[in-house]
């Protein structure tokens, strides 16, 4: 009975009170710790294979991207089709600062992350100020993505153009060693997960949920929709940047295709759609699954694009909420924070006589 009441009145208000207990803090951290432990074992499992470690490292980078995108799109519904570009802003930015600007790597990464975050926040702010709906936000961010890609080509002198950018800073250090690089990336991913989890439990997360469930109602109850959107974009974009910059320095070589729309955005979209838009661990599931699938299909070259295309169609048609929320909806009784109320619940019939 109380669950129906919860569903009828909306998840947010009642949920917050429940969530503040320390028990649920553990409930949030435990799965993250489990996942971290499992992922930490991967290098042992892969043996010494450099190729496979490279794949795993890239997989973690994508996990980072997916978490960032999850925060922007999953939490506040902003369709940012510029995931790769935001990561690239930090990737190229950090590389240029370190190699051409001579700044220390850590400083470069931090500045680059900041830059990416600011760009993301700016895009969100613009979208909010001009009241751009989802589609126009998508188009504008797509434009940003394409612009960035073309600038990379057009400003070849600074960026290395089509040939790419060989990053000399950090060469020979532990960064370029794949296994330490992997653990560094893993640490970042865990950090992102914890930040996302904490955000969801905070009043900011409450604002996100209210906004996503019903923007108009949220506005009326005093939730500053604009502010939460921009926060989400700032933090999410910063995550994208941090992952991108770190990946750049661990891999040592970046090119426009490292951060391209087809190479990053499409894949992240599929990963997140599969894992579950808005769920905490969805991005990890998506990243692991599709890194694996990508490896299996590596021999098929361009045909992988066919697979991704088909998956996008299948996922958005039949499992729009992703695997984790769908499974969660099946198992759980009360509505969880990460899941929209299942829409197959029939609305209470209200045929009052007279």
């Amino acid at each position, binding site marked *: 009975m109380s669950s129906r009441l919860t569903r009828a009145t909306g998840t947010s208000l009642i949920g917050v009170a429940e969530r503040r207990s320390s028990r649920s803090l553990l409930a949030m951290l435990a799965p993250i710790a489990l996942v971290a432990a499992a992922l930490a074992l991967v290098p042992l499992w892969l043996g010494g294979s450099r190729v496979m470690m490279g794949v795993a490292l890239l997989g973690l980078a994508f996990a980072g991207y997916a978490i960032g995108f999850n925060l922007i799109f999953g939490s506040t519904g902003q369709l940012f089709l510029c995931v790769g570009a935001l990561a690239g802003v930090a990737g190229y930015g950090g590389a240029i600062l370190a190699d051409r600007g001579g700044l220390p790597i850590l400083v470069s990464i931090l500045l680059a992350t900041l830059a990416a975050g600011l760009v993301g926040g700016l895009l969100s702010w613009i979208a909010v100020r001009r009241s751009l709906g989802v589609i126009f936000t998508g*188009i504008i961010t797509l434009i940003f993505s394409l612009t960035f890609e073309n600038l990379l080509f057009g400003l070849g002198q600074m960026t290395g153009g089509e040939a790419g950018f060989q990053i000399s800073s950090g060469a020979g250090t532990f960064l370029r060693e794949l296994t330490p690089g992997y653990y560094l990336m893993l640490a970042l991913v865990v950090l992102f997960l914890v930040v996302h989890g904490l955000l969801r439990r905070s009043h900011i997360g409450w604002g996100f949920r209210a906004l996503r469930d019903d923007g108009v109602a949220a506005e009326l109850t005093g939730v500053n929709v604009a502010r939460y959107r921009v926060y989400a974009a700032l933090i999410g974009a910063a995550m994208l940047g941090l992952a991108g910059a770190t990946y750049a320095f661990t891999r040592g070589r970046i090119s426009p295709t490292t951060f391209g729309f087809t190479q990053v955005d499409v894949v992240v979209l599929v990963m997140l759609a599969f894992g579950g838009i808005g769920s905490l661990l969805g991005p990890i599931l998506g990243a692991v699954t599709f890194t694996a699938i990508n490896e299996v299909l590596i021999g098929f070259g361009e045909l992988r694009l066919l697979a991704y295309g088909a998956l996008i169609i299948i996922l958005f048609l039949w499992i729009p909420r992703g695997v984790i929320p769908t499974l969660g909806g099946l198992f759980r009784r009360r509505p969880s924070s990460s899941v929209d109320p299942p829409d197959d619940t029939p609305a209470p019939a209200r045929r009052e006589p007279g």
Partner: protein
Amino acid sequence: MTAIILDGIVLGLQFGLLAAGLTLVYGLGGVLNLAFGEMAVITAMVVLFAMEAGVPAAPAVGLGLVAGGLLGLVFDLTILRPVYRRKHEARVLLSLLLTLGVAFMVEGLLNWRYPLKALSLQIGGGAIEILGVPMRRGSLLASAITLVALGGLFLFFRSTALGRAIRSVIEDEEGARLVGIDPHLMLRLILILSGVLAALVAVTRSMVTPVNVKAGFGITVFALIVTVVGGLGTVSGAFLAGVILGVVSSIAASYIGTFLSLVILLMAAALTILIRPSGLLGVRE
């Protein structure tokens, strides 16, 4: 300079034709067809294979146009069914995602199977002078065809009962239903038309430069840019925006390079969205 501008007009007419197909479908059905470029590429392949099989150029082109129309119909009957069940923003979003999926499928398949194929219709004969600038016959024929097509579209929508009926659905769908017009039927017709337009785009473009299997995404992006600038749902807007952006692009390309000229086009679209979202000739919602 004249040469650059004339080249720009040739390009701009192409842009207009590109956008026409996309903008009609969006304006009428609220559907964003990101697979438009791939539709053009598929029809180009149809024409190419026909010609490789020995079919002369003209009937091969006809075949391509028919293929385009059929593609549009197939779209309406299959991938767009679930899209029609949603309304407004949800519909646009789902159409965006599903057509993106289709675009990737097509691009992946074509690139894997026929990575080196390209359609190129050579129009023989020497250059013709326009305003003192020697223009290739291919460009001129392409522009002429495009002008005729755009003119035909304009007349169709202005002067025929069917054309008016289609416009009325764009204007007010419920009003159209209340006078006996079936919006779904009109949308189906428009989709077939946009398929034919995609084929026409491929064919005319191939008269100027080869259309290869990788051209799809670029075509879609240009179509999107011009559609946004011209306004959703208006062919005249597509034409106007096309020519303007074509000339701008041509001028920019010769002074600052192709990549950066594309950036300028992208910025034009972004500015339109920010300053006047309805586009040049679109309706203010």
